[in-house]
């Protein structure tokens, strides 16, 4: 029965993909998952499976943590005899809502450039016998399918595991179903809202701004959005408590704002439909979803008419113009690079490589955003009443800030180094691999070390001096970098040391609430290591020696080894 259904579904899917509309939907959906950028330009192409795994991970991890928290043994040990799952889980429900909205919005922000049709689509598709209406509706269908996939995948784990964790041990099936339905409705609607919010934002900017201006502002807007999302995530632990402490009027004013209002949906499904407070929150949440969806649709239509249909009339925007030299962040680097010509050129090459594309910049800015938000959260819990003159000891949270920022930056650099480079231009690694050049290895190592040094928060001693602290942060900073020198890949060792050394060398630098900080660092580490397999070093080296290995063969080629060799020779 199952195999017959699967076969029937496969036949339907195959028949649909053979129609022009189905073919277009498949093309656009594939583009949304892979991004609009050129694979040949060395952009990050994680593949659909890895993206889906990354989307599942946050919900899965937090759900697994709740299994322990709501286990019957733990409840017994805490002396919680009578257990009301609906009131006891409000703070976790809010955490899941925020997590769901953040993950979906982050994925939409990541694929922001691929949501709307671009010049490549115009060149390839418009000269074909297709109506513009078909292109419009096929892309809309792909966007909605993408939103549905994101929503389901990002919340799939929590929709199953969280109800099991909370009410799995209860004998009542109706209670379980009611709880699961309320949770699912809340997190799914939060995801839908956040996707449409980002979709609307991108659409409005595309429709209102000239193409070149949009491309220039795009990265900054995404950086600010990521900070906002992370800040939202960071406050998810405190908002439920804050609501309890506020007066009824103030709480009501805050509760109707998304994403807090999505708690109302869960409460309504759980049986509080008659509660006016829950009803107001639910109404506000539904209005927010409706408004976001409506704005997104209007923005999509306007941007299609204003941007896509006018593409042949618009001159090529070309690549984003680099900042003038005096304002470029690379100026600082150029000034401090080694004086001799070869390492200096290598340094500039590494700097350009690391910051050369949107994917690289996104990675670095994202890691910086994580660092900023975690630092802000750490500071928010610290007592800031001290002064240098009175020799009052500064709060220990200050010490942790450079480490947090450094760790996040180094992890970002580490990840950015993994993003494939355009090997034809990658002459520093050719130097490295050239057996006749004995000095190449040391040059390359020195270049990477200098680069990491300059990037890795050189303000530690300054920071410590200004605040009148001792030299332990500086000592640690130096140790991390010296230790990194003995490794072939300094950023890797840096990121590892940045995790462990703060704990071992300066134990008091961690804030009192270690659990929360550790959670963030662990989370970031897991994410970074989950993505790391992209371009493993051995394969990378093989590709460096033989550029033809770079060809992305999608299926096993049905040619003999002799033919394959001819193919490589031809490609050279």
């Amino acid at each position, binding site marked *: 029965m199952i195999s017959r259904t699967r076969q029937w579904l496969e036949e339907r899917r195959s028949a649909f993909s053979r129609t022009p509309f189905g*073919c277009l939907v498949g093309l656009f959906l594939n*583009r949304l998952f892979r991004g609009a950028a050129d694979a040949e330009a060395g952009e990050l192409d994680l593949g659909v499976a890895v993206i889906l795994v990354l989307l599942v991970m946050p919900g899965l991890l937090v759900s697994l943590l709740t299994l322990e928290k709501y286990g019957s043994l733990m409840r017994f040990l805490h002396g919680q005899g009578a257990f009301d799952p609906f009131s006891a889980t409000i703070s976790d429900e809010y955490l899941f809502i925020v997590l769901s909205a953040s993950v979906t919005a982050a994925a939409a922000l990541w694929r922001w450039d691929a949501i709307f049709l671009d010049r490549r689509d115009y060149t390839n598709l418009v000269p074909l016998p297709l109506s513009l209406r078909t292109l419009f509706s096929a892309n809309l269908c792909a966007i909605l399918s993408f939103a549905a996939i994101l929503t389901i995948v990002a919340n799939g784990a929590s929709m199953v595991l969280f109800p099991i964790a909370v009410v799995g041990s209860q004998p009542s099936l109706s209670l379980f179903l009611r709880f699961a339905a309320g949770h699912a409705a809340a997190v799914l609607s939060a995801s839908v809202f956040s996707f449409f919010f980002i979709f609307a934002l991108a659409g409005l900017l595309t429709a209102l701004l000239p193409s070149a201006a949009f491309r220039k502002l795009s990265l900054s807007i995404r950086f600010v959005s990521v900070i906002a999302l992370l800040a939202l995530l960071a406050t998810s632990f405190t908002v439920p408590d804050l609501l309890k402490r506020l007066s009824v009027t103030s709480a009501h004013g805050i509760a109707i704002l998304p994403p807090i209002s999505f708690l109302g949906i869960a409460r309504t499904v759980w049986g509080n439909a008659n509660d006016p407070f829950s009803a107001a929150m639910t109404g506000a949440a539904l209005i927010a979803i409706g408004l976001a969806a409506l704005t997104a649709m209007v923005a999509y239509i306007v941007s299609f008419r204003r941007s896509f249909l006018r593409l042949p009339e618009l001159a090529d925007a070309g690549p984003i113009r680099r900042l003038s030299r005096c304002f470029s962040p690379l100026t600082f680097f150029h000034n401090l690079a080694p004086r001799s010509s070869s390492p200096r050129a290598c340094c500039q090459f590494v700097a350009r490589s690391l910051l050369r594309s949107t994917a690289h910049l996104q990675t670095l800015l994202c890691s910086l955003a994580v660092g900023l938000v975690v630092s802000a959260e750490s500071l928010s819990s610290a007592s800031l009443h001290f002064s240098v003159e009175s020799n009052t000891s500064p709060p220990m949270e200050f010490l942790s800030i450079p480490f947090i920022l450094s760790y996040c930056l180094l992890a970002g650099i580490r990840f950015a180094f993994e993003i494939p480079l355009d090997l034809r231009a990658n002459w520093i690694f050719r130097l490295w691999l050239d057996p006749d050049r004995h000095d190449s290895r040391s040059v390359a190592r020195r270049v990477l070390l200098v680069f990491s040094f300059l990037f890795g928060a050189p303000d530690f001693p300054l920071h410590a001096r200004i605040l009148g602290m001792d030299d332990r942060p500086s000592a640690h900073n130096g140790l991390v970098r010296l230790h990194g020198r003995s490794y072939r890949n300094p950023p890797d060792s840096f990121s590892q040391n940045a995790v462990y050394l703060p704990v071992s060398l300066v134990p008091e630098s961690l804030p009192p609430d270690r659990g929360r900080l550790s959670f963030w660092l662990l989370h970031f580490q897991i994410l970074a290591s989950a993505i790391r397999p992209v371009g493993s070093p051995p394969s990378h080296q093989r590709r460096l020696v033989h550029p033809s290995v770079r060809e992305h063969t999608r299926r096993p080629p049905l040619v003999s080894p002799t033919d394959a060799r001819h193919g490589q020779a031809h490609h050279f």
Partner: protein
Amino acid sequence: MLEAKNLCKFYGSVLAVQNVAFTLDPGQVLGYLGPNGSGKSTTVKMLTGLLEPTYGEVTYDGQNIHKDLIAYRKILGYVPEEPNLYPHLTGEEYLDMVGTLRAMPQSRKSTTIASLLELFSLWRHRYVTLGSYSKGMRQKILLIAALMDNPDVLILDEPLSGLDVTSVLIVKSLIQALSAQGKSVFYCSHILEVVEKVCSHLIVLRKGQVLAHGPTSSVRQKIGKDSLEDVFLELVEDADVTQIVSDIVGVVACS
């Protein structure tokens, strides 16, 4: 028969093309020549229906192409100037997509793609993604995509760009063979010697205006020059080429 009637195109207040008129009969190969910025690409976009002319119209068999653009594009094969293909698709996947979007029957589509890939020496690269193709290989894919549905009208914008010598010879002969079969070919190029050999008729454009139009031999005779290169220089180029070359050599030598 494809006909351009007094085509004018303004981009804002800038006049890109002015009163361009010609007829492209079946079996005719019309060369379209002009320096950079002369309005060639704008004309091509109007002929393919990507742009609507500000004044004038493009007709096919007497009917304005914009009245039934889908039917017109069904009989049109177009090779754009830039091979801006989807880098994540393989060569075969891209052609399969084009065939599907052209609503070609499955069996005809498969056999045509396989045969053309083989003939254009791309068969062993069919599972390689387009992002890894060289420019010449991408150009071949565009040529196959334009030819695979047996179009009546071919609009080729610099089709030989990036091709190797053998492929250039094949494409040049192919254009003449297609013209002998009654296909209309609009050939836009900078390579004068190819235009001279391939095209039966010629239009020379400068600053959006037609300077010369007619059979290639007749244009040459009218200007009184032996080669098309001389004709082009006579009509289009104001600058003294010899003087520019000597200036460049001087600058290079000084530096």
